[in-house]
């Protein structure tokens, strides 16, 4: 029992220090909506880096990737390829999104659609899609947190009270400090995560096999199929790999929270430089995979692949170290959850609630509704996490297939003058229906292709065809503005 006390005390200590930093970050600032959601648009290279890395290295990287390496093998390489490629894509779209964002004072992804396509309904639908897809992602963070506490307490503490405590803290610092709190907590979390990931990734193969090379040699000998696709699966071959890498890397920045993170930057150039450097940070991903692969030989037959990294740490290292790893993992889950809550709440209040139900509402009231929504979303994700159990990767891919359908609207909106509101609407609706149908009826992958990718292709095709058949309302950002001014009453500052 004393082992679990040591581990849990350290986890709890790390979580408390992290949360305290989160609370203090917003202490002496006046928190209006602009400051709360986009940090007053004043973040430089370091803070943007930390925020983006903090958001991107989530519980999934920590537990899910090693879990898939353990249970499926080589197909997890999709995650290793996705990381640099999504930054390549970001290089070409984020600076443009930032530019538009600053010019029209955008705070959310739905604001972008509102300004570009001059349609409140389209913007509200985008907000709805965003909030709905964020929920499985939030649930992923919560489930991860629960797993950590369960393993660290050697099964002594049930995951539910742990999830409730951690999420109360998250909701608290989001409530008080907004995005600035998240960025500062990211600093602590990144330091811890980097150090522990590098250490575990090198030490575990070394302790059991005498190095990474011998580990791979042993694995190639005993599990020859595990190291090339389709690994331990039947359906995840090369077609699946290409379609999944394309889908996830092209559409990664369609996640509403990553999209909105670009608004926090001080200049577009910072985002470009960030895109050049960020792949280097993914160097932790292969290390996590090494741990999952070592576990194939050291801990065969685990009931849940997502437990492989933690169980490995528990078996190999003293309890205090399990505590540090658990603390880093817990803080990771909290940072990711915080930004997702913040984004989901702002989207709901600003782009769904106000335009649909209370058009004359002031920004101050919107900020209040957003803060209430933080609590509502927290409770929603908690209920889901307690009552359903799906693997971490499945949750991630479900949300991904949904947000991916926003990609044609964004990229054509930036680069094409011929795309129309109806085209984007039709493509998005068809893509989401198709993705949901394929995934919920167990048809993913479909003929070897990623379901979200199939939906995205149909989405692009339909957006193109309908756009050619319908009249252009707003061909660019500047042209949609007179339309907006006409449709918005003077007393509502509205979306701008």
């Amino acid at each position, binding site marked *: 029992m004393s082992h679990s006390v040591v581990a849990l005390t350290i986890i709890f200590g790390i979580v408390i220090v992290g949360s305290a930093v989160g609370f203090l970050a917003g202490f002496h600032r006046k928190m209006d909506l602009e400051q709360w959601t986009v940090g007053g648009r004043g973040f*430089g*290279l370091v803070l943007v880096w930390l925020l983006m890395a903090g958001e991107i290295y989530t519980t999934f990287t920590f537990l899910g990737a090693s879990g898939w390496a353990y249970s499926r093998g*080589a197909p997890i*390489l999709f995650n*290793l*390829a996705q*990381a*640099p*490629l999504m*930054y*390549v*894509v970001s*290089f*070409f779209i984020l600076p*443009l999104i930032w530019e538009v964002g600053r010019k029209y004072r955008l705070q959310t992804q739905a604001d972008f659609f509102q300004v570009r396509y001059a349609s409140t309904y389209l913007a509200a639908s985008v907000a709805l899609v965003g909030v709905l897809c964020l929920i499985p992602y939030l649930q992923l963070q919560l489930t991860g947190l629960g797993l950590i506490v369960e393993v660290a307490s050697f099964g002594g503490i049930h995951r539910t009270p742990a999830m409730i405590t951690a999420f109360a803290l998250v909701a608290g610092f989001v409530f008080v400090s907004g995005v600035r709190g998240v960025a500062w907590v990211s600093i602590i979390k990144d330091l811890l995560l980097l150090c522990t990931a590098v250490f575990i990734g090198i030490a575990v193969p070394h302790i059991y096999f005498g*190095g*990474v*090379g*011998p580990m*791979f*040699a042993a694995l*190639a000998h005993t599990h*020859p199929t595990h*190291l*090339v*696709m389709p690994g331990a699966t039947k359906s995840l071959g*090369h077609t699946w*790999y*290409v379609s999944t*890498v*394309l889908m996830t*890397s092209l559409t990664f920045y369609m996640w509403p929270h990553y999209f909105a993170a670009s608004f926090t930057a*001080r*200049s577009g*150039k*910072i985002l*470009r*430089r960030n*895109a*050049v*450097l960020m*792949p*280097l940070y*993914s*160097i932790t991903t*292969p290390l996590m*995979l090494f741990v999952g692969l070592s576990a194939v030989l050291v801990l065969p037959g685990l009931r849940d692949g997502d437990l492989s990294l933690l169980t490995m740490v528990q078996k190999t290292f003293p309890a205090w170290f399990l505590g540090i790893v658990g603390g880093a993992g817990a803080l990771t889950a909290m940072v990711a959850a915080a930004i997702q809550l913040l984004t989901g709440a702002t989207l709901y209040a600003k782009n769904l609630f106000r335009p649909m139900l209370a058009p004359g509402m002031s920004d101050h009231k919107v900020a209040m509704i957003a803060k209430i929504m933080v609590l509502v979303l927290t409770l929603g994700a908690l209920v889901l996490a307690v009552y359903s159990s799906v693997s971490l990767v499945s949750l991630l891919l479900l949300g991904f297939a949904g947000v991916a359908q926003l990609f044609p609207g964004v990229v054509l909106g*930036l*680069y094409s003058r011929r795309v129309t509101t109806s085209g984007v609407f039709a493509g998005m609706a068809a893509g989401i229906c198709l993705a949901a149908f394929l995934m919920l009826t167990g048809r993913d992958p479909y003929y070897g292709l990623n379901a979200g990718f199939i939906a995205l292709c149909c989405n692009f095709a339909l957006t193109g065809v309908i756009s050619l058949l319908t009249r252009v309302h707003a061909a*660019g950002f500047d042209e949609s503005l007179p339309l907006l001014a006409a449709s918005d009453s003077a007393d509502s500052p509205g979306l701008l």
Partner: protein
Amino acid sequence: MKRPSLGALLLGLIPFVATCFSVALWDRVDPTVLGLPFNFFWLISWLLLTPVCMWGAYRLEEPSASDARRKEGED
């Protein structure tokens, strides 16, 4: 919207070709390099090579990068 230059787009395409479309060429265990199966080695090296390509794209997109950095100071 200012479109990215063709050169920058081509530089951005290189990592896609290398790590995505060509999967059938490099997804194998042999030859192992530095103890890593070839597919792992290939993808890990592209974590390092992608920034090189994108640094080139950066120079094309922001030709006055060094002057601007001096102006912008530490950020």
